[in-house]
């Protein structure tokens, strides 16, 4: 088992994992209490009751659906993440903030994919990750540009220079998130690395509304109404079309190998930590946009 907050490995089962989290709560550890408040309950219970609730949070016989449901609960509920609200009708500052911070996200992304490859001998994982690296980072000469290239072009279309995007240090939440993803992919099993990274692609999956999301990643009207630059349309459309196959194929692989390697709870723990980092990272995109707007950048 693994703690969904501090990620330490814990021998045993739900009893031991809930005992660890409960004792951290008794020590008033802010990070563990945050996890309990957000994913278990805000009301204190007895230790026995707490163990039952923790078990309920994790127990599933359908990991893929569990991940999708938790992701929707976190980002696409009736109170969607603030970045998604901004993205329904994005202004230039939001899109600029997106370009500056996401550049650093993608730099880590390709490293994470490579570490996942390095941590396994399963060839279908190698093929999946190579394909992902090509579409996100490398592109294919004469056929399609990389997602990263489209991102930079979007930034440029709103006046950013390549040099400035490359030379601007990411904001602290982005640095923290990138370090966490690096740590997970470097040190944990490949399937946990995949869960940390590829579950996040659900953010741009246009099927999320079919799964119960209250909003999409953006309102598709902006692809046609001229409210954003052509480069933004190119960038968003690419993700809009590509990430469906990416994120869902990845979830199928995660489900298959988590079961085979007996790592379902570990995958869930890493997923929890990853979406917390991602939440802060999405806020950093907004903060960067505000900084650029106020010329504090």
């Amino acid at each position, binding site marked *: 088992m693994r703690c969904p907050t501090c990620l330490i490995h814990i021998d045993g089962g739900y009893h031991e994992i809930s005992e660890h989290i409960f004792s951290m709560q008794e020590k*008033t550890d802010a990070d563990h209490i945050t996890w309990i408040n957000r994913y278990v309950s805000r009301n*204190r219970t007895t230790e026995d009751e707490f163990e039952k609730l923790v078990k309920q949070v994790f127990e599933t016989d359908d990991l893929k659906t569990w991940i999708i449901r938790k992701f929707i609960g976190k980002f696409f509920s009736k*109170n969607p993440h603030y970045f998604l609200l901004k993205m329904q009708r994005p202004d230039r500052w939001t899109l600029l903030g997106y370009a500056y911070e996401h550049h650093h996200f993608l730099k880590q992304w390709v490293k994470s994919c490579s570490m996942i490859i390095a941590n396994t001998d399963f060839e279908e994982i190698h093929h999946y990750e190579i394909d992902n690296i090509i579409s996100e980072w490398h592109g294919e000469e004469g056929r399609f540009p990389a997602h990263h290239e489209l991102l930079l072009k979007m930034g440029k279309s709103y006046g950013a220079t390549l040099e400035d995007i490359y030379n601007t240090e990411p904001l602290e939440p982005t640095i923290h998130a990138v370090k966490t993803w690096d740590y997970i992919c470097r040190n944990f099993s490949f399937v946990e690395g995949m869960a940390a990274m590829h579950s996040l692609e659900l953010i741009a999956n246009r099927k999320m509304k079919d799964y119960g999301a209250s909003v999409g990643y953006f309102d598709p009207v902006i692809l046609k109404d001229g409210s954003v630059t052509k480069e933004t349309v190119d960038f968003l459309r690419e993700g809009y079309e590509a990430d469906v196959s990416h994120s869902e194929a990845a979830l199928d692989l995660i489900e298959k190998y988590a079961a085979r390697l007996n790592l379902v709870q570990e995958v869930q723990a890493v997923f929890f930590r990853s979406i917390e980092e991602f939440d802060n990272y999405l806020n950093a995109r907004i903060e960067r946009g505000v900084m650029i707007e106020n010329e504090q950048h």
Partner: protein
Amino acid sequence: MKTNNTEGCGLCNATWGEYWREIDGDNMYFCCNICADIFETMVDKVKESTGWKKIDYVELNGNYSSGRECEARNGEDSFKYYFRTYSNGKFITFEKR
């Protein structure tokens, strides 16, 4: 200082943890140091915006994700505002409503 969170943490009303901090001379209960940090910074920002020396009561509605719509009262005066923070407590937005 009183808030509408009567059961638990002065900021989020959770009943886990136990962290006390003196805010404006009152010893207040929070679930963790981050909630206490957020509350303390919020009080400073309200005072800065209003020029008040004290706050009697704060009503908070919302959550960490969508942010909190609030109303602070000082005697007959009232001040409405909204704020959001990162999960480490750092403020992203604080604005008058």
